[in-house]
């Protein structure tokens, strides 16, 4: 499903080159669940961005669903994201001017699909928000916003779901509910799940944990 080969990422700073990722290699099978863990500044979010096609590697290649992302333009990668990828972010990243329902509808509308509204309502129903359809993000609690984000992420039946610290902004109780929902939906849809997190309890629920430090993979173990 995901094949990361010799990936390095460097940034040009004030007169010096900063290497964030250095020769990273791993493969993720379809349907598996993987956590990427590591301390702050270890490069895990950068790695997630590269895997999801949000950015390009300085060296190496990323293959997602057999598509070489490094050979595509930004607009082509956008199309790949819309077709195969779902996202969950730490700060939810809902569009503030759209209602909960509209936020979920966007990926489906973009694909030009039919019955968008009914399918989106059904997804929001699944995450327990059938009575919050027409609320704007600012009118929802953090947990509710993350559940809308979950519904949106699964709306286009993604082959792979990337989650960046999905519980980072939630309290423990709400985190537990969101994690349960995430894994339930994932199991139901058979999606490949990649989570970047500090939360070892969350990481322990995935089948595999990749530990990263200083831009290198320091451990790759199965749970």
């Amino acid at each position, binding site marked *: 499903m995901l094949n990361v080969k010799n990936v390095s990422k460097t940034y040009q700073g004030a007169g010096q080159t900063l290497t964030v990722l250095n020769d990273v290699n791993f493969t993720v099978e379809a349907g598996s669940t993987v956590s990427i863990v590591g301390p702050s500044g270890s490069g895990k979010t950068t790695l997630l*961005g590269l895997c999801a096609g949000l*950015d390009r590697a300085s060296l190496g290649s990323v293959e997602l669903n057999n598509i070489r992302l490094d050979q595509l333009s930004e607009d*082509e990668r*956008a199309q790949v*994201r819309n077709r195969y990828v779902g996202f969950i972010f730490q700060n939810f990243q809902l569009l503030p001017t759209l209602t909960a329902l509209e936020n979920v509808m966007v990926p489906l509308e*973009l694909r030009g699909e039919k019955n968008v509204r009914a399918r989106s309502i059904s997804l929001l129903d699944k995450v327990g928000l059938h009575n919050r359809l027409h609320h*704007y993000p600012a009118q929802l609690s953090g947990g509710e916003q993350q559940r809308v984000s979950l519904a949106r992420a699964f709306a286009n039946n993604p082959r792979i779901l990337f989650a960046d610290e999905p519980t980072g902004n939630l309290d423990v109780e709400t985190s537990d509910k969101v994690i349960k929902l995430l894994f339930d939906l994932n199991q139901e849809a058979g999606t490949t799940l990649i989570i970047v997190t500090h939360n070892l309890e969350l990481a322990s629920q995935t089948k595999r944990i990749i530990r990263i430090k200083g831009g290198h993979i320091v451990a790759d173990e199965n749970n």
Partner: protein
Amino acid sequence: MDIARFKYKRKLRFGWLLKMAWRDSRRNRSRLFLFISSIVLGIAALVAIFSLGDNVRSDIESQAKTLVGADLVIESNKRVSSRIKPLLDSLGDQRSVERTFASMIYFTKNDGTRLVQVRALDGDYPYYGNIETTPARAARSFRKARQALVDKTLMLQYNAQVGDSIQIGDVTFAIAGVITKAPGRTGISTTVAPPVYIPLHYLDSTGLIQKGSRIATTYYYKYNQPAVIESIISDIEPRLEKEGLDYDTVEERKRNTGRAFEDFNQFLTLISFIALLLGCIGVASAIHIYMREKIASIAILRCLGVNSSQAFLIYLIQIVTIGLIGSILGAVLGIVIQQQLPAVFKDFLPVQVTTTISWKAITQGIISGVVISLLFALLPLVNVRNISPLYTLRLAVEQIRFRDPLKWLVYAAILFFVAGFTWWQIHNWRQAIIFTLSILGAFLVLSLVALLLRWLVRRFFPNSWNYLWRQGFANLYRPNNQTLILIVTIGLGAAFIGTLYFIQDILISRVTLSGSGNQPNMVLFDIQNSQKDSVAVLTKQYKLPVMQQVPIVTMRVEEINHQTSAQVKSDTSTGYRTEAYEWEFRVTYRDTLTSSEKLTAGKLYGPVRSSDDVIYISMEDRYAKRIHVNIGDHIIFNVQGTLIPTVVGSLRQVDWQRVQTNFRVVFPTGVLEEAPQFHVLVTRVPSPEVSARFQQAIVRKYPNVSVIDLNLILTVLDEVLDKIGFVIRFMAGFSIITGLIVLIASVLISKFQRIQESILLRTLGASRKQILFITAFEYFFLGALAAATGILLSMGASWALAKYSFNAPFTPHWLPILILFAAISLLTVIIGLFNSRSVLNKPPLEVLRKEV
């Protein structure tokens, strides 16, 4: 899997884009309203002026006949020769004659005297339209009695009533009516010498028609079948030309009036356009901040699969829609303003203007508004294409800097549009480019000042100053600062107001300077040969100096270097300007230079003693250059039918600023002494009372002599300038109010940026007074710097205008400049504080809930 299938092929899905544009704008519409408001006034001014133009054009078309008052008009500035008289008397099915000249009139009731334009009329002219009078019947009845029609302003000025008497020359006329409107005359054209109509058959008995008198004769013809006029004109044109007669037809007048109005209209359109451009800076600023706030949303959309074109289009649709709404609102306001324009411009319009809605003007205004607001909005909008989805993971918005080559294309498009729009108005690429470059220059200077200020404050930041000063200073360069936008908008407004003020000042001081000190301030003209000495004696009796007394002979050019007018017209390679042949020269004769003259080439040859002597004339150097004449060129003058061959012997530089008689052509003595001539006497009166008494004496004793009092000219000029000033102020008002709106919008928009910080300061314990100080200091600094830069720009522009256009010295008065500077700085502070009042007056939490 084949990656080719992911090559970009996605449809744009326009319906969805519209839907997304609508959804995205939901919570920002009040912000977008600010964007609308800055262009509304500019569009309103454009639509109003476009509509006025359309209405005047169609009114000229429909009222052209009443402008002329007849089907054919033939004019002569000299006595009509007996050769052409039979022809003139045979034309038309009905005809009228009018003889026009400047003369003094005397109000017998209160001894008032005034220079007027006497129009002695015979016949039923006007055949189309009316001389509008109060009472209405007076326009017809005065022709049958010893009665006169007197201009409205003159009646008011001398507190005269219908039934009072005026004396013109030796004849006393009863005032039959007050002229409110005469065919084809606008308010301004009658200000210097207001018209007075009398019946023609009393003209001779006034005793004003004497040898050398400058009298114009106009023949008005009505044709029962106006279609024949064109063929008649082509038959008689060569004869008219030979006799030096001009003609005017309805079609000709349509063209000339249209042309004169177009100049005026172009000027108004360009002023409106400046208001629109100023509004567009507001647009660019508002959209810039709007797009900054949208970066997060765009990044999310990009994550979800929206491509760069779709993201760009979502916002483009919003901008175009809002630009369209703004333009439509502007057009509606423009229609309202248009109703008022005929009243504002009444003194400058040649016809009675209707206020019909012009759909063409509305469409032009709306299209211009949408295009230009879009172009300016594109500057920040092109950045949308570069927003990476990565910002969803790392949203470091403050550090985002876009360098997009497409921006240069947008800048080029803006310049091209501005130049193109200007060309559309004035049809002259050179002037259009100068106009565009001037505006660009002002923008650049103000932008550079703003950038320099930011750099200087950052580079030499006063770290040792207390916190409030430092915070106020720091606001000038910190992220989301308003330094650039406020300095450009306020600066342009200040430059505009300053330039208007300085021009008015230059024009007025140019005249008042001439009248100060021991400079002459009264000119007596039309003095006959026989009256020359006794007028001088009378002047001295009133203890007034005879500062100059010169003879004047009127003549025309017949040939230049053996080329006649007809030859020059048919062969343009000669380089002589045809205007030289059309001009009626007022020439004097003497063998010396006056104090206002300086020889620049050749020499004065002295008196002509025998008929074989070559007559060397002296010509004003600038005029000689204009008509391509040089030393040694041969010119034959026609003095009332007598041809006088001359050679250009010298060129003189003339200071036209002095109130004294100055001449383009000076003859030597010994040539023109016997030619029909009149004399001019120049003197200085010490007070208005002496002036009035002296004028009364002159008018009573020498009714044919006309007097121009410089004080009167000053008053008239003041009135004219006041009227022009009102029009300029009215039009500049659009720019100034737009500038204020942009200022308010910029400050309001920045309020959203600054509010969290101010609240944080308040939460940390900053007092209301401290926040007030920081805010006031920032705005005062911006306002003061912008005002100073704008005023300096306006001084530069005014200096250039004074030097190159008005040929006048530029000595600005400092007090009004200081007042303007203080007013603009203070206004900026007031608006800044007014917009920040919610932060100052309400508890932090309440503001946070409401505004953030």
